[in-house]
């Protein structure tokens, strides 16, 4: 009979940029159970609704995470705009969609680099982060920030992005697409990489649905669901092709995220072609009174922003349900039965964002 032992994994581990802890119950080298534990960096940002008014909370929401910052700001303002029945100008909706897709690009490129680093392919890691740097430069030109942008406001955007700049982004995206296709070949065709990803951490469609998964994690298990299909922002006017895979393993999750990079580039190009001229914000009067739950597709999956307000300048509740929070139960499932040596790769393939999760 195999010997059972419990091995603590994290919160500090070379593969983890942020702290999460797992108690791994092992039978020899096989994981039979994984018990997750978070809460090392809980900041209580949601509690700040008591001190920051509904406009200032945009900045708080953005600071939930340094990777999905644009999306967090967007989710919050979208909820408040629905409560206050604000009609956001079409140009602002298009600009938000373009910035959102740029966020997805840099998030997925960051993840590809972390994955390459996790299996020791250092040159591939540096290559993907070099490509990502170009997106951050574009953010800096458009918003003035590389991590926190503070461009969203209730009613639209703080500043316009000139059409000439958008066209220059499209030119640069052609180069980014070309470079990413070369890197994608290594991720999808290199035999050493495939040996680390294929058949590792399989999650079936039924399990993914039952465990409440979202984002690329869900789509890599064959379920075609993407919150962008709700049509918020300018997505209703754009041709969205959802990337899925039926394999459900770590390779499929890589394949889906790579597919989404090319899809995001295509969406940005479509949006730049169709963006109308006109105002980029609308004046906001009064205070929010009511409740709304906004659901958007962050790079890691569906995120929910629940806002409740009572007609004063302070909202009474802002709750963020992040995609990683929804994907943690599935992580415990895919770890069951895996080899101890595959645990780091499998944790990386859910693309965990603990900063978002802890809020």
């Amino acid at each position, binding site marked *: 009979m195999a010997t059972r032992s419990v091995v603590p994994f994290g919160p500090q581990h070379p593969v983890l940029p942020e702290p999460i802890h797992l108690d791994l119950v092992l039978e020899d080298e096989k994981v039979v159970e994984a*018990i997750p*534990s*978070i*809460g*090392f960096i*809980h900041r*209580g940002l*949601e*509690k700040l609704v008591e001190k920051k008014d509904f406009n200032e909370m945009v900045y708080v929401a953005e600071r939930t995470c340094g990777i999905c910052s644009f999306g967090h700001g967007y989710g919050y303002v979208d909820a408040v705009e629905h409560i206050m029945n604000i009609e956001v100008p079409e140009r602002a909706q298009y600009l938000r969609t373009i910035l959102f897709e740029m966020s997805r690009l840099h998030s997925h490129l960051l993840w590809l680099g972390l994955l390459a680093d996790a299996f020791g392919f250092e040159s591939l890691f540096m290559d993907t982060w070099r490509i990502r740097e170009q997106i951050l430069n574009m953010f800096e030109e458009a918003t003035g920030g590389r991590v926190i942008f503070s461009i969203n406001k209730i009613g639209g955007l703080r500043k316009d992005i000139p059409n000439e700049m958008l066209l220059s982004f499209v030119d640069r995206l052609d180069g980014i697409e070309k470079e990413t296709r070369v890197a994608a070949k290594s991720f999808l065709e290199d035999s050493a990489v495939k040996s680390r990803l294929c058949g590792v951490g399989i999650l079936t469609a039924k399990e993914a*649905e*039952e*465990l*409440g998964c979202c984002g690329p994690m869900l789509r890599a298990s064959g379920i075609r*669901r993407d*919150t962008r*299909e*709700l049509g918020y922002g300018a997505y209703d006017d754009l041709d969205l092709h959802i990337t899925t895979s039926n394999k459900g393993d770590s390779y499929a999750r890589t394949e889906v995220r790579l597919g989404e990079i090319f899809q995001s580039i295509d969406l940005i190009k479509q949006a730049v072609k169709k963006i109308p001229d006109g105002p980029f914000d609308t004046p906001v009067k009064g205070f929010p009174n*009511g*409740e*709304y*739950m906004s*659901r958007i597709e962050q790079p890691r999956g*569906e995120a*929910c922003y*629940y806002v*409740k307000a009572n007609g004063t300048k302070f909202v*009474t*509740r802002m*709750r963020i*349900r992040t995609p990683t*929070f*929804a994907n*943690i*139960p599935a992580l415990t499932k895919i770890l069951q039965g895996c080899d101890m040596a595959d645990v780091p790769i499998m944790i990386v393939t859910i693309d965990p964002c603990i900063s978002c999760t*802890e809020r």
Partner: protein
Amino acid sequence: MEVKEVTLDSLLSEVQGLKAEEYRLIQICATKVNEDEYEILYTFGDRYDEVNLRFSVDGKTPIKSISHLYWAAFLYENEIHDLYGIEVENMVMDYRGGLYRTAEKAPFK
């Protein structure tokens, strides 16, 4: 946003009904209304449509876990316990206050 008001007693039968219709759990959260009242909001989804269930509790009465129906609910329920101090009965995985390592016990209470 449409919300169906339920009671602490009718929650489980409502959730069982949604489970039978293959709804997925999207989120659970608590909101403090005043010192003696908290709202618990459950959101379920059928592809893109959502169903919201809500009931109020006084913060001292334990609420029932739905984690035997939706396993992933244990994380949301532990979060409610750790941040609001509301007891949740029969969770499939009970961290006993250890999910969040907060300096102050139940900081959102």
